[in-house]
């Protein structure tokens, strides 16, 4: 197990009196896949938004790779290598799959403010973009408008776009939500492949996905950490069974 790459201390966020996330301590070790699970409304997505700075925390601190990122802007956090995905697939609908990936690649090259240059300079990224699309099985769809791709492939495109940034750490918000069975398997395979050399924190509802994939699991309920540990430990915890599995049956 590596060192801690992402650490939150006493993370709290309230919305006009409603405390969505309440004093959460979270430590993610480098190189692991860490899952954040919990029933609906447990504060998982809010937690994600706090960690990636899409929401400012009311209290608490966040450190990434030894740096205090508590006061940073979301774009700055992304530049440090902490890149998130979204619950609803986030692709650029009217751009082709290739262009989607290129948008991420061109950011690293810089010069994206050059409004006087022809977009032909972006062709230098085509080879790398194709490679990334091949990695996620989308090579045949490079020219397809992203909006026209089926749902599972949109998620794959999203991962390819995220990987284009070569992030140190990925935050995946329900990567398999709303997917057909064979698509779920494909995404799980994909996550297994891309984890090499990276850290992944994911929100996931599908427990069978979590079981086979994640090294550490944090269970949230009502904005608090209920339990933490590997799947075997967490799934035996009676409180977790009551709070999470219980409500999943209901």
């Amino acid at each position, binding site marked *: 197990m590596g060192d801690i790459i992402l650490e939150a201390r006493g993370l709290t966020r309230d919305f006009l009196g409603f405390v969505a996330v309440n004093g959460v301590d979270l430590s993610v070790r480098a190189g692991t896949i860490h899952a954040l699970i919990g029933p609906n409304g447990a504060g998982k997505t809010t937690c994600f938004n706090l960690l990636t700075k899409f929401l400012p925390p009311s209290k608490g601190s966040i450190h990434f790779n030894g740096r205090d990122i508590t006061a940073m802007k979301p774009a700055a956090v992304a530049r440090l290598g902490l890149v998130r995905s979204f619950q609803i697939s986030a692709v650029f609908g009217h751009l082709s799959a290739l262009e989607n990936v290129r948008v991420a690649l061109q950011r690293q090259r810089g010069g*994206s403010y050059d409004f006087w240059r022809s977009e032909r300079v972006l062709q230098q990224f085509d080879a790398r973009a194709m490679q990334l699309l091949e990695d996620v099985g989308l090579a045949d769809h490079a020219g397809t408008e992203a909006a026209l791709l089926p749902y599972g492939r949109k998620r794959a495109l999203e991962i390819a776009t995220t990987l284009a940034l070569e992030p140190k750490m990925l935050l995946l918000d329900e990567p398999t939500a709303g997917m057909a069975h064979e698509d779920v398997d494909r995404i799980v395979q994909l996550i297994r492949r891309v984890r090499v050399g990276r850290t992944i924190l994911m929100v996931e509802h599908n427990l069978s996905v979590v079981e086979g994939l994640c090294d550490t699991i944090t269970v949230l309920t009502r904005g608090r950490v209920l339990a933490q540990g590997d799947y075997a430990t967490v799934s035996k915890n009676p409180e977790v069974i009551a709070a999470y599995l219980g409500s999943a049956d209901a």
Partner: protein
Amino acid sequence: MFGFSRSQSIGFVIMLALIATSPFVLYPVFLMKVLCVALFACAFNLLIGYVGLMSFGHAAFYGMGGYLTAHAAKEWGLTPELSILVGGAVGAVLGLLFAWLAIRRQGLYFAMITLALAQMVYFFCLEAPFTGGENGIQQVPRGNLFGIIPLGSDMNMYWTVAGIFIIGFLLLHRVVYSPFGQVLKAIRENEPRAISLGYRTDDYKQIAFVLSATLAGIAGGTKALVFGIATLTDVNFTTSGDVVLITLLGGLGTIFGPVVGALVVVSMENYLAQFGSWVTVTQGAIFVVCVLLFRRGVIGELGGLLKLSL
């Protein structure tokens, strides 16, 4: 050529041919108005069509560009090209200010802030001494281009306006099809995602807004020189509304759409003028038909039909 796709090159050549031949058939002053309004609409389209920002205050840049160009030409005695650049500079400065105040808000709130700021500019123009209040700035001399070519004749003026329009059009086209433009389109499609990829999207929107306002100022300034007058009409919010109508009618997010929209709307204003307020009624009816039947606008639908990006 200039990064045009094949279909766009053909469209561009057709447009150039029409610009070159039409003054021998139609009244040049009418055509100059079409070109000024077209440049204004193209500038507006950069925001609504490619960044997804709905500005409801573009009359401020267009109208103030007109006032300052007129003032520079009449009171400071600058040559026409410098006067027009003054108009563009005013557009840029106002655009910077507007964007700085409005860019952090989304959707309707953004539109309302731009509208409110534009109304403030309107009342400034109504009260400020140099604008001449209700009378506007009249009898603005067209002057000599570069101090040499007299623009008194409509044909000389026409070629100047055509030149300004083409340069503005090509510049906007380049912006849309640049690495910068690619990021703008990404912001239009999904701003949170663009942020999560590390783009400071506010900066991109700010730059796009200033570019758009600058060209709107240039368009307004050019129009003031053509007609020799700068009035309150061009800073009024109805002008902001017209440019929305023109862009939607022609096809938002297409490079030729605003030009076609400008041609249609200015022609209606011109040739239906004898029917008085029926112009507005007709415009309204056409707008409703457009929204109901061809939502992507004239060029948008045409492009969809031919499966081309125009």
